[in-house]
């Protein structure tokens, strides 16, 4: 009780003190606020609200972008497959007439189809790649000859798209498809001979004319090979340039000139670098077209100025007192750089390099200029093989109106975005883990 009383008096005394106290206390009291206090608070509120609105709008855009891509690309990760009872007749295998084998099993499934035109439509149910698959199967396992076996064969992409959409929406709406196809699909689905399966082909194949066979493996590998060349060229060159300019070169009109040029280069539209690569690497040096070697070299030109700038910033962030400390111990200028400055700047350099690599990873335009838009079905084995990259693959598929490619495009964008996120996470990790606070 007494304590409570004491507290009350103390509060009252504090209040009394505040009233007589310096001016700033007045804004805490219950007295009417000064006009400028109100104005100041309103300005704060306005600014905070504006910031919030900006963030909300950009999040909305981002969310709708991701939703759009995911909702249209998700279906590409599954494909419809048809279970066919395949009879590997010895004579047909001998002749290599795998197409006939596939056709026979389809006819066996739908014996009522007589008409030649109808038959051709029936054969169109399965992927045009089916005979090829069977051939591979026999090559892997010759014991299959003269046996019968149930095998899941990928459906043609139109069939696949139609089936997936029907499953999803339970409606008759689907892609362009004939009435007889629709009837067969219903029949197959009812007898459980048509099912949705995980689409391995998307991750195991390169590009293909058939949407159900097209995959991102070749373009992903192509992307990585291109980036590898790009790093191998741009990293040492860019870092060495930055070290020289920052640590060794005496300031003169010449270094100023170089600096201005580098800063300008960073702002040059990327397609210009493609044209440069076309005229120098391809026409002058005669390097192979559409190879990951040339692609990487073009992207290296593109990110070189960015790497130089990032490295210089990282070097500048190392306080001069550290350089003086090393020099005063008797370290030579080279030792100062390689034992100290560069080491301490490395996390910053790595972050900059990784972010510029993310940029190179997503570049499309300059690669179109050097012919990396070629149709590449096979995974490139060497750096001079024809190759394509993920963003170029997206570009190629996006210009194909077939429904099967529309979902492939979105799915490839998803793969690209996942790689991007991984690269950026790596940059964040390195910054968090190794950053030196001065």
């Amino acid at each position, binding site marked *: 009780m007494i304590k409570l009383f004491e507290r009350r008096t103390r509060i009252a005394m504090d209040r009394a003190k505040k009233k007589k106290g310096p001016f700033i206390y007045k804004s805490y009291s219950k007295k009417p606020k000064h006009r400028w206090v109100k104005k100041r608070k309103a300005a704060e509120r306005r600014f905070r609200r504006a910031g919030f609105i900006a963030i909300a709008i950009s999040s909305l855009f981002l969310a709708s972008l991701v939703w759009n891509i995911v909702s249209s690309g998700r279906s590409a990760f599954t494909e419809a497959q048809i279970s066919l009872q395949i009879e590997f007749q010895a004579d047909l295998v001998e002749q290599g007439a795998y197409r006939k084998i596939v056709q026979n099993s389809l006819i066996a499934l739908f014996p009522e189809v007589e008409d030649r035109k109808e038959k051709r439509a029936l054969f169109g149910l399965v992927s045009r790649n089916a005979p090829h698959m069977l051939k591979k199967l026999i090559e892997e396992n010759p014991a299959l000859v003269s046996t019968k076996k149930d095998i899941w064969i990928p459906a043609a992409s139109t069939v696949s798209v139609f089936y997936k959409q029907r499953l999803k929406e339970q409606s008759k709406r689907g892609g362009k498809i004939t009435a007889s196809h629709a009837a067969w699909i219903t029949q197959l689905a009812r007898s459980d001979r048509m099912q949705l399966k995980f689409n391995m082909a998307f991750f195991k194949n390169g590009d293909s004319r058939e949407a159900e066979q097209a995959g991102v493996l070749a373009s992903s590998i192509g992307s990585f090979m291109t980036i590898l060349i790009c790093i191998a060229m741009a990293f040492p060159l860019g870092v060495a340039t930055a070290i020289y300019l920052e640590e060794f070169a005496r300031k003169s009109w010449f270094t100023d000139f170089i600096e201005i040029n580098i800063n300008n280069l960073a702002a040059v539209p990327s397609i210009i670098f493609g044209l440069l690569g076309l005229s120098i690497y391809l026409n002058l040096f005669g390097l192979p077209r559409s190879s990951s070697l040339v692609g990487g070299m073009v992207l290296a030109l593109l990110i070189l100025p960015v790497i130089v700038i990032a490295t210089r910033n990282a070097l500048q962030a190392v*306080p001069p007192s550290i350089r003086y400390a090393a020099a005063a111990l008797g370290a030579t200028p080279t030792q100062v750089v390689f034992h100290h400055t560069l080491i301490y700047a490395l996390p910053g350099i790595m972050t900059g390099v990784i972010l510029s690599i993310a940029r190179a990873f997503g570049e499309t335009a300059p690669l179109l200029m050097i012919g990396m838009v070629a149709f590449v079905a096979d995974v490139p084995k060497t750096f001079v093989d024809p190759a394509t990259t993920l963003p170029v693959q997206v570009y190629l598929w996006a210009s194909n109106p077939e429904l099967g490619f529309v979902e492939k495009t979105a799915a490839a964008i998803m793969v690209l975005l996942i790689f991007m996120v991984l690269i950026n996470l790596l940059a964040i990790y390195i910054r968090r883990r190794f950053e030196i606070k001065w």
Partner: protein
Amino acid sequence: MVKNMSAQKKISKTESQSDIRMKTQDLSAFYNNDQALFDVNLDIHTNKVTALIGPSGCGKSTFIRCLNRMNDYVENCRVTGKVRLDGFNIYKDKVDVILLRQKIGMVFQKPNPFPKSIYENVAYGPKIHHLVENKDELDALVEKTLKRVGLWDEVADRLSAPGTSLSGGQQQRLCIARAIATKPEVVLMDEPCSALDPIATARIEELIAELREKFTIVIITHSMQQAERVSDHTAFFHLGHVVESGDTEKIFNNPEHQRTKDYIGGKFG
């Protein structure tokens, strides 16, 4: 190189000069066209502490940087005149600055340990100058040096922790250890305590008193009391000139010049 030639020179010098480790002769320094030092003639005595005092901007740091040629790093700084280490002019062309800086260590105003381990901080100098043959010798040298600056007991169990994780006073002692690990003859200190609290300052002052037996020390300080406590000789700088120099006791108790008297009395600063 410095060592050999200076040894020869030393023999030819007279007895009275052997206790003078460094000597500047008509030393002037310019930044662009502004002269910061005017014909400074100053002797720095062997195994003594020489304090440099004077108001800010009077050229103390410029002077101390002339002594180990750190001014080479300051763009647009030009130095004329001579600085002799054991009688040998360190501004001659053929002087190897790297060896020179091994002989003349430096401690800076703000503690600036490398963001490497405590061990590496001390071991770095001996390593680049090849002062040790193997890891064991290096370990021994690091331990000895850290003990000498009184840091061993505090860091013995965390030698691999980064030097930057220590407290300010510890960092400065680490920097002193780093400087004396290369076995220099002279240690230059540019306001080594100005960023430290009084207790850490007292610790450094004790350390300076101990180091005096082995090293020749030049210390810049803004604190009259500190100069009086730690130094044997004092030089008073003003506007780029050495106004007065001599025994600390004499400078503080019986200065010849009015300006010295005013500065020590706190009339300006």
